[in-house]
């Protein structure tokens, strides 16, 4: 064999992709699944400790399942609840990938939703295929601008984004209160801060209303799917995504490689804000048809958990968002059927995150689910 041929052969071997290792599989799939199981088990213990009897605990978990996936209406509600969580979670995941711990999704949802609602009730007479995209874009753009304030502060002055986004969240609530009381925005005849209603042409239409008008799942879920695809593409297929990931993993190496740190920070924050803004738009155009104080409903904070649970991967975020949506929806059924407080769902969500963050604990509880631990040689 000639040297050239053997070289080609070597190159071919080098291009082979190793099968995903068992360790990766454990980390990405088994740990989250077990974390959910352990969290549910601990949730049952919490119920026991608060004097809930065993039959009720059994009934509440059956209700959790039925209420989240047990019927068409349950599925519709789960998707409706998951949509904004996934959108905002995608934004946060993008930020995490770029090394930015953006706590500001809540504020970005508020500002994005506010912009979307204003566009949504203005421009009467526009056809829906112009008006709806316009309102969505307005939401994304407003969220992006709001988030880039924190990005710019970080890039220009070094102000840490955790602090600045928390502050921007608080500011956004006040902006919302103020704007909702302006005469052109406040609903006629109301003294409290509440916006006019979104026009039909800007509403995200219900998808299954032809079966039953109570099925609330709306076209926002299509926006979500598109967003998952787009974010995946940006992160793993584009130059800017490469820059995000490089900056997030190793800022020194990114600078060495000639990536513009300031640009990356602002761009990552703006993209994250755009997605959170879309989440806000999704809520006002698809669910509420209006904006009022508190319409963000803590989604921006739940989305942090969603992004963490989804390991900052677009597909992971999708599944994590669906899980959290299901928990939220199933939690209602739990309260209705078993009288168990919906606060328990908050506890279970928190426990899932704790166990995800402590994989060693999960491994210790389910030793048979994992390969035997191996000490790696450290040379």
């Amino acid at each position, binding site marked *: 064999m000639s040297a050239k041929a053997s070289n080609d052969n070597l190159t071919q071997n*080098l291009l082979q992709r190793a099968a995903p290792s068992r360790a990766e599989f454990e980390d990405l799939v088994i740990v989250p699944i077990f974390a959910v199981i352990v969290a549910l088990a601990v949730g049952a213990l919490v119920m026991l400790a608060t004097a809930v009897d065993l039959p009720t605990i059994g009934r509440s978990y059956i209700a959790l399942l039925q209420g989240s996936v047990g019927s068409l209406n349950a599925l519709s509600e789960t998707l409706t609840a998951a949509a904004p969580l996934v959108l905002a979670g995608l934004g946060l995941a993008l930020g995490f990938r770029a090394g930015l711990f953006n706590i500001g999704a809540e504020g970005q949802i508020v500002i994005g939703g506010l912009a979307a609602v204003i566009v949504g009730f203005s421009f009467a007479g526009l056809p829906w295929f112009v008006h709806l995209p316009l309102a969505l874009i307005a939401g994304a753009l407003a969220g992006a601008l709001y988030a880039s304030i924190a990005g710019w502060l970080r890039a220009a002055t070094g102000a840490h984004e955790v602090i600045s986004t928390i502050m921007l969240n608080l500011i956004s609530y006040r902006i919302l209160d103020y704007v909702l009381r302006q005469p052109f925005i406040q609903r006629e005849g109301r003294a409290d801060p509440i916006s006019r209603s979104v026009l039909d042409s800007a509403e995200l239409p219900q998808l299954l209303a032809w079966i039953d008008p109570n099925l609330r799942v709306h076209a926002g879920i299509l926006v979500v799917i598109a967003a998952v695809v787009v974010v995946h593409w940006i992160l793993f297929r584009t130059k800017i995504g490469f820059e995000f990931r490089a900056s997030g993993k190793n800022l020194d*190496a990114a600078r060495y490689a000639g990536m513009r740190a300031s640009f990356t920070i602002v761009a990552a924050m703006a993209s994250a804000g755009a997605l959170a803004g879309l989440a806000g738009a999704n809520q006002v155009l698809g669910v509420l048809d209006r904006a009022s104080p508190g319409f963000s409903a803590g989604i921006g904070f739940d989305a942090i958990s969603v992004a963490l649970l989804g390991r900052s991967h677009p597909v992971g975020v999708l599944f994590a968002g669906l899980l959290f949506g299901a928990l939220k929806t199933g939690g209602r059924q739990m309260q209705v059927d078993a009288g168990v407080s919906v606060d328990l769902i908050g506890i279970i969500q928190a426990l899932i995150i704790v166990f995800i963050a402590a994989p060693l604990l999960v491994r210790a509880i389910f030793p048979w689910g994992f390969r035997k631990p191996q000490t790696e040689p450290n040379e």
Partner: protein
Amino acid sequence: MDVELRGITKRFGPIVANAEIDLDIRAGEVLGLLGENGAGKSTLMNVLCGLYTPDEGNIIIDGKPVTFDGPGAAIAAGIGMVHQHFMLVPVFTVAENAILGIEPTKQVDYLDLAAARQQVNEIGDRYGLQVDPDARIEDLPVGTQQRVEIIKVLVRSADVLILDEPTAVLTPQEVEEFFGIVRSLRDAGKAIVFITHKLDEILEISDRITVLRGGRVTGYGDPKTLTEQRLAEMMVGRPVRFDVDKAPYNPGDLLLEVRDLTVLRANDEIAADHVSLEVRSGEIVGIAGVQGNGQSALIEAITGLHRPVDGTIIFDGQDITNVSVRARHAMGMAHIPEDRQRTGIIGDFTVAENMALNSYYDERYAKGMSIVWPAVATHAADYVADFDVRTPSVHAKASQLSGGNQQKLVVARELSRDTKLLIAAQPTRGLDVGSVEYIHGRVVAARDEGDGVLIMSSELDEILALSDRILVMFKGRIVAEFDASKQPVDRNAVGLAMAGSAPRAAA
């Protein structure tokens, strides 16, 4: 105290890190343990320190077999290790560090610092290890910090001292001093294990030598009769060439011109102080100096990672003082960074991604907004094959590669582009002999093809072996220049200049 290791075998899954290793450590002797990275030295020493339990074999102390169930047991048995990376608390004093974990206390947990001070002074007097017990670690030079590490071990009454690559951080002069300390410890009856991959040092300090390769003992030796050549063969498994073949010195046009460059550190101290230098095409300019004398800052300024406060940098006829890193890349500047782990690669990224780290945007890899990953992978595979990077696949994570192969990855990335000037900072730090040989060959090849090369290293041997001209930096200034293009430069003269005590030597 004598320690024997008999038939030690340690496996990690399918990997055998140590195979049936026998080792004799005797009181009053320095045992040199030689081996490339990955030869099993650290695993063996971790077995001796009680961090690992061997799968087979015994540890015998003074004729009695012992088992260690943890590092504590090994320390109690009198075995102490001085790690390559110091384990000191920077804001504590010498005395506080020395007693960390075994603090002498009086009533009510009252810390008896006076006793600690006294211990430090006693040990210092006995072994020639004088250190001010009240000095804070962060204020001490590296060589002195190392003494504190040794004192720490001695405070715990160790009779066997394991020194892991102790000279890596020292200047030639400090190495000499350090050898004095090692000898006095030996003469006081301590048993010393001296781990290194530097051949000259092991020949100088050891009483006996054991060489490891691939987890097995491949040779025992007497330093009086062994040569560096023979040792290297035992270590690498084939004959090794130390001298580098270079084409005759034939410098071309001026490529890089640095004028009065002043660079500040983060704390506004002056790092590089009005430095001027020139690099022509077809020559290797070496910057020698003990770490921390401004070389790093100078390199960072030239490569665009750090803004200088004063002076100009002219590259290929253009003023690039305030030009972005990417523009410098585009002009043909290649940069092998000082710290490959921190700057050179992203461990969580694949080999292919790392191969495209600073050129993902050029036409080889990118189309519009997207990166064409198949193209990245095929190019990466070519370069991997070309530069002999040992990796199972270009889709393997860079962190899974050994240090030498990570560095080859960086070199491959930088030299696979069309470059004019190569700036290499510590290009072979921590690498084994085989990798050093390879990288040196590549650097010289770049020079022979007409690239200018600016190389910065704290390893004087490396500078001497490669450079056509040598500049010595001390306290931010270039204090000496040597012409190495015609005849070899006097090693001592350069060493003295590095220590700041040389008159400005004429070229």
